[in-house]
């Protein structure tokens, strides 16, 4: 498509970050299929995972196009090692109990939706088009997550305690999503992506309100755990990739 044109590495990173967040979370959530505590929740989790896989495909296709080396979405998903993945640490955290899975989803959705709304105004039309499509799905995900966080937080003594434990464990990972680095600053300056600080502020205010309704306390002074956006992951990602990439690694180019 483009020859001898220098790859826009910041834009490439943005597409990978958005795509990898969706892909890794989908892989995590998809593992619940057939195991959720209620049939309706099983279907909901599978549907959320499906939306995220669809979104990952769009972002990674765009990443391949920006890179200009002929890599497809599948190539990027199945043939990169952990260090090349750009997802935030939050989405690779283990499923834990149902409370952990829901809390991880809620913390992600609470950032994902406003981020996609902002990306709809991206100076890059391809980014804006994908965001326009994904935003509607993310809004639906957020609606479900918020409802469940409040119902289970402000629920029985056991459900509240489990939600509080999950919040304590996962909250430190939420900040990375809104923590801007040089790539984000460059993209914001070019109006390709929003100022992540603004997204983070809105997100924090929203979370505060929901946690108050859910009678949960966020450990706001906890240090932010980050590194995934730059490729420095927790030990969990390697295991996820080992599962997800096994077939293409063992039988390169296999199709059906």
């Amino acid at each position, binding site marked *: 498509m483009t020859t001898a044109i220098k790859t826009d590495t910041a834009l490439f990173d943005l597409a990978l970050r958005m795509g990898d967040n969706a892909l890794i979370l989908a892989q995590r959530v998809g593992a619940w299929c057939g195991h959720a505590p209620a049939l*309706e929740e099983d*279907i*909901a989790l*599978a*549907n*959320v*995972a*499906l*939306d*995220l*896989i*669809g*979104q990952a*495909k*769009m972002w990674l*296709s765009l990443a391949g*196009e920006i890179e200009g080396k002929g890599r497809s979405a599948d190539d990027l998903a199945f043939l990169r090692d952990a260090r090349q993945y750009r997802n935030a640490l939050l989405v690779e955290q283990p499923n834990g109990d149902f409370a952990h899975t829901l809390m991880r989803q809620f913390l992600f959705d609470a950032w994902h939706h406003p981020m996609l709304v902002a990306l709809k105004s991206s100076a890059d*039309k391809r980014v*804006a*088009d*994908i965001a*326009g*499509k*994904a935003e*509607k*799905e993310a*809004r*639906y995900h*957020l*609606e*479900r997550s*918020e*409802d469940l966080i409040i119902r289970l937080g402000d629920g029985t003594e056991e459900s509240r305690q489990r939600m509080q434990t999950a919040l304590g464990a996962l909250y430190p990972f939420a900040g990375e999503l809104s923590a801007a680095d040089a790539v984000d600053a460059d993209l914001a300056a070019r109006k390709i992506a929003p100022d992540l600080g603004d997204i983070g502020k809105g997100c924090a205010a929203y979370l505060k309100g929901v946690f108050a309704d859910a009678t949960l306390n966020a450990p706001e002074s906890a240090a932010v755990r980050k590194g995934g956006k730059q490729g420095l992951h927790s030990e969990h990602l390697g295991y996820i990739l080992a599962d997800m990439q096994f077939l293409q690694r063992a039988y390169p180019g296999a199709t059906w």
Partner: protein
Amino acid sequence: MVRAEKRNSTLLPSPACGRGAGGEGASTKGIPRADAPSPSPLPQAGEGRASADQIWSWLADVPDPEIPVVSVVDLGIVRAVEWEGDDLVVTLTPTYSGCPATAVIAFDVAEALRRRGINSVRTKSRLSPAWTTDWIGETAREKLKAYGIAPPAGGARCVGDLKNPIVECPRCGSTATEQVSRFGSTPCKASWRCRDCLEPFDYFKSF
């Protein structure tokens, strides 16, 4: 499966585009079914090739693979039909990003047109404007209802509103209905039930 969009040529207008696409324009009266033997396949190039109206009416006969009572035109999935030289290019839009029917729809569309004698068909995907259930016309809504699926209610803007829309039971018409689950048997549907006739039903989410 769906090739990337490369360039635009003159778009043929859809007889059923804009709000309510698929309603009136999707009428299949008098059009032979795709599986019926075609009396004389139309030539594909030059002055005798099929017109846009003709192609739209053929596509109005291609059922959605998950909800076969409505067609891909009814649902607003077909966005444009255009000739690029001797190739017929059909532009489709995905409903939900991860809907597994998307690939099947592209295949079915190409296959239906091949049966009409158009051998060089390409399908491509367009994301923007994002698909919305506002594109489902009145006729298609009636078809969904008759099939037992409550059609989208309240306009697409109510997606994500915590207040649920008022949904009529497709069996008894009661509005004393409630959501069982936000998700259902396909990405586009939610699970509901009727408090009057007590039957569960699928609701085609307003999106």
